[in-house]
């Protein structure tokens, strides 16, 4: 920048260059359109502050290679070219790659067929690279000598050998994951045997003992390190960091700040996971069930088959016992086809099919018939529905309806009935007395009704039957199973015989209107009452009557005085004034 500005100052003092704004549009011009003076100015290419830190800029290429001859040459060549010089393009020399002497065609057979669509692929190297153990020269020598001792039928192939070696390797790895660090002894054959089933089949196991010895020897040679050449990963030791061969370290887990939201989130996730696991478990359980059923079915089929075989045997032995239809049970009969249900759509379908133009009135339905059919179907459907409902409701008691509608009146004891008198020919035994009558006292039927829960009623319609004048009663159950007897029309049959004065005494003996002031309806023109009135009105009360009344009043006052203290003194005087 300094150089640019100084040069600008020297070249043409009039212009001070503005800073370049990367957002502003810049004109595109050809070189010949430039004025020479401008061009002159351009010799001092303005260094534009690109905003990169100097240090950062220097990282664009490694400093180490910054002044390498080849790079310098190439850069200056391209630079010269940019300015307009004639320079041949310069390459940085690199060690050449040369065609290999290996038998490429054999090692890489022509197996690839390009699919029409873009390839989608997710298998890993481990999936596609086969057995990870590769037979090496040392193994080869061993294997040849081992096979020499065997006859042609029991040779161990390379593949089997590798499988077995791999089995040992992987067992060792899983048993001694830290073998690289704490150098434990080579695992024993017995240990490998435990896991061998996972890796090897029976045929392969034949060689395992022999090969184990070989493997053990090799492991011992290698200091019990894995025979498969592997990368060096971190072991947790301090030397890791400096060791250039240790690579692909794990990145430490970044601590995530704990928040309630995150907690809830993960809890939610766990719940979901649990639910899903549970579902899949259920699914598996059901699959298991299904498979069990299948097995059962297969067993049954097998039995069937055996029975049939037996039967055939029997029939072959006894050919004269032929019976029509025996063949039928030897084979599986096709299940009879269900008669096709005629749906209402069928006529519609049939009509368009008639393509031959033949008049086919006979096939056509009359409207009335169709209506009738329709009617029938509807009613059938309704019937069906009802049946279905009944079926559904079977074993259920519908408690929803009962409180709202009165139970049917057919039940015994729930209605008023006339009280009838019946004379038993003989006095009944006390035990059976309840059962003897059919006049409503049959508790057995009551219980039966109760069991059906129809006897409960909360509101009964007032039923005033024609038997109004007749005494009747009914029995009902109140809350808590109380048995109530309602009576109606109970007339005192001896009323006429009772003395009218006594009867009168009870005439108004009614609990219901306790609060009402009793009113006596007396005929004012009755002679008796006229006589009574004539006696009381003109005459003074008798002496005795007066005294009795006074005494009565004073007693009441005294009681009042005792209650009210000094106020009673005043009131005690009042009677005096009254009197």
């Amino acid at each position: 920048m300094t150089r640019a500005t100084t040069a600008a100052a020297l070249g043409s003092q009039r212009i001070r260059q503005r800073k370049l704004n990367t957002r502003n549009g810049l004109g595109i011009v050809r070189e010949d359109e430039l004025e020479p003076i401008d061009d002159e100015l351009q010799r001092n290419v303005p260094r534009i502050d690109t905003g990169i830190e100097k240090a950062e800029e220097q990282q664009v290429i490694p400093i180490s290679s910054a002044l390498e001859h080849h790079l310098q040459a190439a850069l200056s060549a391209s630079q010269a070219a940019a300015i307009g010089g004639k320079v041949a393009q310069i390459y940085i020399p690199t060690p050449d790659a040369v065609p290999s002497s290996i038998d490429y065609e054999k090692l890489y057979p022509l197996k690839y067929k390009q699919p029409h669509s873009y390839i989608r692929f997710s298998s890993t190297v481990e999936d596609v690279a086969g057995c990870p153990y590769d037979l090496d020269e040392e193994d080869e020598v061993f294997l040849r000598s081992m096979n020499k001792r065997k006859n042609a039928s029991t040779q161990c192939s390379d593949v089997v050998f590798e499988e077995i070696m791999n089995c040992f390797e992987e067992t060792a790895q899983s048993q001694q994951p830290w073998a690289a660090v704490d150098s434990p002894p080579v695992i024993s054959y017995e240990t490998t045997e435990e896991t061998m089933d996972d890796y090897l089949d029976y045929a392969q196991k034949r060689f395992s003992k022999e090969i184990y010895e070989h493997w053990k020897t090799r492991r011992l040679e290698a200091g019990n390190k894995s025979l498969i050449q592997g990368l060096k990963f971190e072991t947790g030791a301090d030397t890791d960091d400096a060791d250039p061969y240790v690579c692909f370290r794990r990145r430490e887990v970044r601590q995530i700040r704990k928040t309630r939201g995150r907690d809830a989130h993960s809890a939610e996730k766990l719940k979901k996971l649990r639910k899903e696991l549970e579902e899949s478990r259920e699914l598996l359980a059901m699959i298991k069930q299904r498979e069990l059923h299948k097995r059962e079915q297969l067993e049954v089929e097998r039995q069937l088959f055996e029975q049939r075989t037996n039967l055939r045997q029997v029939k072959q032995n006894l050919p004269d016992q032929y019976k029509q239809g025996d063949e039928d049970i030897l084979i599986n009969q096709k299940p009879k086809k269900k008669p096709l249900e005629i749906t209402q759509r069928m006529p519609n379908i049939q009509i368009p099919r008639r393509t031959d133009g033949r008049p086919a009135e006979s096939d056509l339905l009359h409207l009335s018939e169709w209506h009738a059919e329709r009617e029938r179907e509807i009613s059938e459907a309704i019937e069906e529905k009802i049946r279905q409902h009944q079926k559904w409701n079977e074993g259920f008691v519908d408690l929803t309806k009962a409180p709202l509608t009165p139970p049917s009146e057919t039940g015994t004891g729930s209605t008023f009935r006339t009280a009838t008198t019946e004379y038993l020919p003989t006095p009944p035994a006390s035990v059976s007395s309840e059962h003897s009558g059919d006049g409503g006292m049959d508790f057995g039927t009551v219980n039966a009704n109760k069991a059906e829960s129809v006897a409960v009623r909360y509101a009964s319609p007032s039923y005033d039957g024609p038997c109004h004048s007749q005494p009747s009663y009914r029995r009902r159950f109140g809350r808590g199973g109380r048995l109530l007897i309602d009576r109606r029309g109970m007339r005192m049959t001896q009323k006429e015989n009772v003395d009218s004065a006594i009867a009168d005494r009870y005439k108004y003996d009614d609990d219901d209107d306790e609060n009402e002031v009793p009113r006596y309806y007396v005929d004012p023109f009755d002679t008796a009452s006229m006589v009574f009135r004539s006696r009381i009105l003109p005459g003074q009360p008798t002496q005795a009557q007066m005294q009795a009344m006074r005494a009565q009043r004073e007693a009441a006052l005294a009681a009042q005085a005792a209650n009210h203290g000094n106020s009673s003194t005043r009131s005690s005087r009042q009677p005096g004034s009254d009197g």
Partner: protein
Amino acid sequence: MAPRDGSQERTGTPDTVEKGMATINTLRIGVKAFVEKDGEKRKAEILSIQRKKGEPNYYVHYEEFNKRLDEWIPASRLDLSQEVEWPQPEAPTKKSQKSTAPAPKSATLPKQTAGQKHPRTSNTVATSRKNSESPELSTTTGNAAKPARSPLVGGKENRPGSDRSISVIAPEITTDTPKGEDSELDLVDIQDAAAAAKASNPQHQAPYSREEEIEKLRTGGSMTQNQTEISRVRNLGHIQLGAFEMEPWYFSPYPSTFTAAETVYICEFCLSYFDSNQTFTRHRAKCTLLHPPGNEIYRDSSVSFFEIDGRRQRRWCRNLCLLSKLFLDHKTLYYDVDPFLFYCMTTRDEHGCHLVGYFSKEKESAEGYNVACILTLPQYQRKGYGKLLIAFSYELSKREGKLGSPEKPLSDLGLLGYRAYWAETVTDVLLDHEKNSKDGKGSSEISVEEIGALSAMTTNDVLHTLQNLNMLRYSKGQHVIVLTEAVLEAKEKAKAKEKAKGLTKRRIEPARLMWKPPVFTASSRTWNW
């Protein structure tokens, strides 16, 4: 960078480097001698010595050349008629062989402190990292800046001490610095390449401490700044892959026993590795994989792309990373492959889908990178596949509706590849735009951000490209973009070349890309297994 420091140290350096004649028997690790290479003598540093069949072999690094040219040479190629430079006397050669604990600072520091401007924050300094000034370098580059450097002792570098921490030195690029190319100023630092490669003085080069680096890697990222990662002796001799054999360029942490093997065989499809032909042949008899183990997301007449999730295909992706580490210096395999997606380009024939190259991409990049590592296998290089890979990575970014840029640092080849792609893309965008505006569609102007939006390139990358191509100029009081003759010429040349070859240029056709940006939940983005 840090020119000041370098220059200051330079004054002190000549005394400290010990020169002298050497014999085969006195050569040791860290010695710099002249080695015959391609008919010329190049100065090279001995990084390792091995005896093969009684004859000593030397692993040498040629100064100022990429490490991929490091090689084993017999003693006969060493020119002992010239003086050799001895490593710093106090450089603890024996100790460094083991490359272990940092020595206490007090013992090693005194000499250095004089020249050190940078604050040293920590007490522990790896002794082997001590600067040893190398005077010869001051002449080799035209830069005033000379970094301090030390001999690399032992094949494997020491772990950087915790002192690595500090300070990128503020680069005060002085006006008087005679630079070759102005435009390179920002991209290319002035440090001696070889010195840096050997990580002699980590304070200068690594803006990250070891801990910072690891933390950065943990949260994604696949490229390392760490010198210890990239300055190891190559461990494999030959690679057999598919129908080709090649030499690896860099160290890769294949099983350590493979070092002994002459050739390492790699299965072309599952990328499993074997140290003997026998086991490899056995494996091929069993392996059924015929293409990268993922979903095909793009297919045209010549190539297919497969998308592979590092988490789901851990084994395969590890194998791929091991393989690509052989050719990528700054790639690190420190952490696992889980947070990356791998986009693999293949060609097809009846053998199967052959891996040509790939790029990896973070599932979620904090820095907006659309490529982590990118590699064309050596046998397919210089055939235009690299550009196709880059184009595909930008096509994915377009589909995502994001701007992208590759993770830094880029390798030398990567840088050239990206620059070429950027130049071509930006030029195409500009030409299109110019054509459209002439046809009366749209305005004649285009902003840098619009170019970025059309190409999914970040604004910075566009700016850098424009500058590198000298297209951004100032005319009549405003900035303009100039379609320079050179650019147009290059365009014509490329067209002519295509015609000559009779090939249509390989392009990514967006309509053939059947891909939706994958969405990952936080947990699957891979903080753990």
